[in-house]
């Protein structure tokens, strides 16, 4: 048991050191990521100007800016660049064999890699994030309540896990398809527009709103941001968190099942 914990600790430390090599590039890259939001904010400012300051789907202009900044935080938790394509590439090149031989579990190994990535990312990215949030402090309605803050942090952790297991499951489809880029394209397309980082999902008219509510995508960006803004409260909040946890469980199980059957289907390409 202890030696097992030591193995995982070592994997985490190596991954963490790997990630901290390019910290300067990291910090600059993080600041650059806020640039596209600038145009979005001007766009919404113009929309609100045309509406003569009326609220839009329950959001004021300030709420919109705060919402965008908070979805950046959520996306920083839930985005998993290169995870699916990496898994599919390992399957294709035969590299995945090492997980079949060594007593290390692929899903656990990659999860620790991502945890290390996010930890490293946040140690470096906290400064640029704090700077932007400080400069934009006027747009926030104030600190979220203790409940909203706690629920927000919980939903962020869940959205990290959801992003991880969802994309890992997509990558594991590679056991059958070998090339998953077309599947990833469809996923990216929908998650780009329907996860809520382009606009608050409350803006959608019916029946689209209900349809989007039924997908797990909203938990990748919209839900944590809306919780931290205090837009979701009371029983809705409890229900949302439960559904989010349910989706995490669903995709964790799905990834396990895909791995289980995939390795039986696998025919070891490559050397």
């Amino acid at each position, binding site marked *: 048991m202890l030696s097992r914990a030591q193995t995982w600790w070592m994997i985490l430390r190596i991954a963490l050191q790997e990630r901290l090599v390019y910290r300067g590039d990291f910090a600059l890259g993080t600041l*650059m990521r806020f*640039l596209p939001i600038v145009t979005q904010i001007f*766009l919404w400012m113009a*929309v609100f100007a045309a*509406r003569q300051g009326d609220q839009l789907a329950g959001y004021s202009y300030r709420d919109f800016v705060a919402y965008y900044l908070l979805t950046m935080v959520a996306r920083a938790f839930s985005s998993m660049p290169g995870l699916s394509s990496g898994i599919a590439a390992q399957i294709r090149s035969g590299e995945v064999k090492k997980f079949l031989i060594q007593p290390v579990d692929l899903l656990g190994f990659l999860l620790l890699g991502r945890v290390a990535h996010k930890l490293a990312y946040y140690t470096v990215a906290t400064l640029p994030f704090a700077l932007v949030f400080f400069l934009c402090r006027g747009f926030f309605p104030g600190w979220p309540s203790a409940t909203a803050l706690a629920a927000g942090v919980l939903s962020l952790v869940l959205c990290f896990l959801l992003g991880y297991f969802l994309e890992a499951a997509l990558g594991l489809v590679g056991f059958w398809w070998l090339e998953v880029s077309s599947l990833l394209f469809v996923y990216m397309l929908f998650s780009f527009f329907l996860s809520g980082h382009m606009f608050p999902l409350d803006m959608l008219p019916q029946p689209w709103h209900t349809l989007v509510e039924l997908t797990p995508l909203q938990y990748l960006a919209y839900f944590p941001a809306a919780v931290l803004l205090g837009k979701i409260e009371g029983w809705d909040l409890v229900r949302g968190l439960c559904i989010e946890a349910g989706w995490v469980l669903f995709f964790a199980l799905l990834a396990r099942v895909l791995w289980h059957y995939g390795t039986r289907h696998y025919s070891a390409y490559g050397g």
Partner: protein
Amino acid sequence: MSPRPDYFRVFLTFAGNSLVREMMFHVNFLIECVSSVTWTMMNLGFYLLIFHHTDSIGYQTGWGKWEFFAFLATTMLVNSIVQAFFMPNCEDISELIRTGGLDFALLKPIDTQFLISLEKIDWSSLANFAAGLVLLIASLIQMTTRAENPLTLHPLSLVLYVFYVLCGVAILYSLMIALSATSIWLGQNRSLYDFWFYITNFSRYPMEIYEGRLGTPLRWFCTYIVPVLIVVNVPAQIIARPISPDGSTSVWPLAGFTVIATAASLIASRWVFQASLRSYRSASS
């Protein structure tokens, strides 16, 4: 051997070769066409959602739904031309320098900038050009046939529109080639590409939205220093002409400036490109 190569025929050969290459994998070609058009459709859905909640972009700017869709169509036309003809080549420049492949381009008896800017053509990007054209025609029909305040389209507007779309393409091309030429000095230019993406991001919306303490200097900067704002705005204003009710805005001073800016961008980028070639030290020898 003729002293001066026939540039047009060389270009046609490039175009033909690229088409042959893409047609070898015609299913892949079709998928790429469909996927780029799908992105555009989703984007269109996003703006439909915005116009579900508002009548215009900005207070009394004149950018109503169909005016803005004509603007969006113009963005699609300009971007698809740049992506089809110049993007695949400029992406390769840093690779040419890293591997020393630029040596072969320099040895050929033809202008180097011409050769490495147009060698490959990504035909599938032109699917978005077709989509842009459909959207433009649809918006123009809507605007000319509406009961209230219909648009009268002068044939000259169409000619000027084509001219200013080409000006926009030339400005974006200049920016792109100048940025990728700097990879001769820097060795790698990945972040420069991000920079290019972010800066053209500003060109995608009507310039009227950049207002206020931060917006006005930004608009000024993106119009006169790095002229990305006029790329789409000028042709779109010429064709859709969203004149504010007080009639004060006129596109002509800006249109005049665009001609000068286009010429200046082309000359400046040519200069940057040639200056960077002079500092090229072949990697292979």
